[in-house]
């Protein structure tokens, strides 16, 4: 469970991509607040901390559950 940061080139400009590997918001950035993930120009040196767990997409979960049931022959 950690903050992950990686460099990425976008349009010839060096950006830092920041995210949590534990499905949590990251807190910081500009404007200061919660982000799902963040891309920042490297020169700004922005930092983040881990925040709350992000909500799960309920619709996606329901679709996955239904697909699983179909595969397992539950809903026949």
């Amino acid at each position, binding site marked *: 469970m950690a903050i992950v940061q990686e460099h990425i080139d976008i349009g010839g400009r060096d*950006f830092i991509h920041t995210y949590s590997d534990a499905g949590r918001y990251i807190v910081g950035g*500009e404007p200061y607040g919660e982000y*799902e993930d963040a891309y920042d120009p490297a020169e700004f040196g922005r930092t983040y901390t881990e925040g709350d767990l992000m909500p799960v997409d309920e619709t996606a979960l329901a679709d996955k559950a239904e697909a699983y049931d179909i595969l397992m022959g539950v809903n026949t």
Partner: protein
Amino acid sequence: MDKVFDIFAYLMGKAAGGGGGGGGDVTVESKSISSNGTYTAPSGKAYSPVTVDVPNSYAAGDEGKVVSNGALVAQTAHAEVTQNGTIDTTLNNSVVVNVSGGDPNENANKLAAGTLEAWNAKGLTYLRRINGIYGLKTAVFPDLSSIEYGTGNNLSMNSALEKVDCGLSWSTLPGNCFNADGNLKTIILRRTTVVSLRAVSCFTNTPFKSGGSGGTIYIPKVLYDHLGDGTGSDYKAASNWSTVEGYGTITWAKIEGSQYENYYADGTPIPTT
């Protein structure tokens, strides 16, 4: 001599209003007329003066009367309308509509079938998920301040959506907010501080994506004037916005001086108080 006096008396009697057929008195009386009609004085009577005062405005008891076009027309308040249908409201000065019931999801799907083109969500302060309103072209949120975050789509999957107008309180664009709104070309952000872009996925499959056709984002002059000024606190340098800016698909414009300065995206005037 007697015949002379008889003749004189006869003539006097005639002068006093005797009938043409051989004498008799005629009574003269006044006549007041208050409604349309033909008035004939009975035998032995005459009318003088005649006063006419036919009402030309609604009075109690006139309900339901239609005299003729341009004349007396009375109206009543209609009873509450509670179901679809064709109703003649010619004689009604007010109609109360209260059609409800049915499956809310079915009703929402009917809206999604293209009947709702512009939606001014005045008074709506919290938005969770409304993806799927396929016919909606213009969405205005004057009072929205809270949106459910996370991976849930909000205004997404609407290929008809062209304009979104965010009020002063809208402070955050969540991930996938406009995902798959393939015709979204105008976004108005009225907040006077930078709106947080929680994830670049907000613009996935929109004209603002990398390689997209582009669109215009209207912002207040106070922010427009500081675009790219190197302070890191404007839209071009903000977290995630800086990335979308790098796509080259955003045209920034000032709200002031634009068609949106005094009107929301749906054309309704912005209250001045």
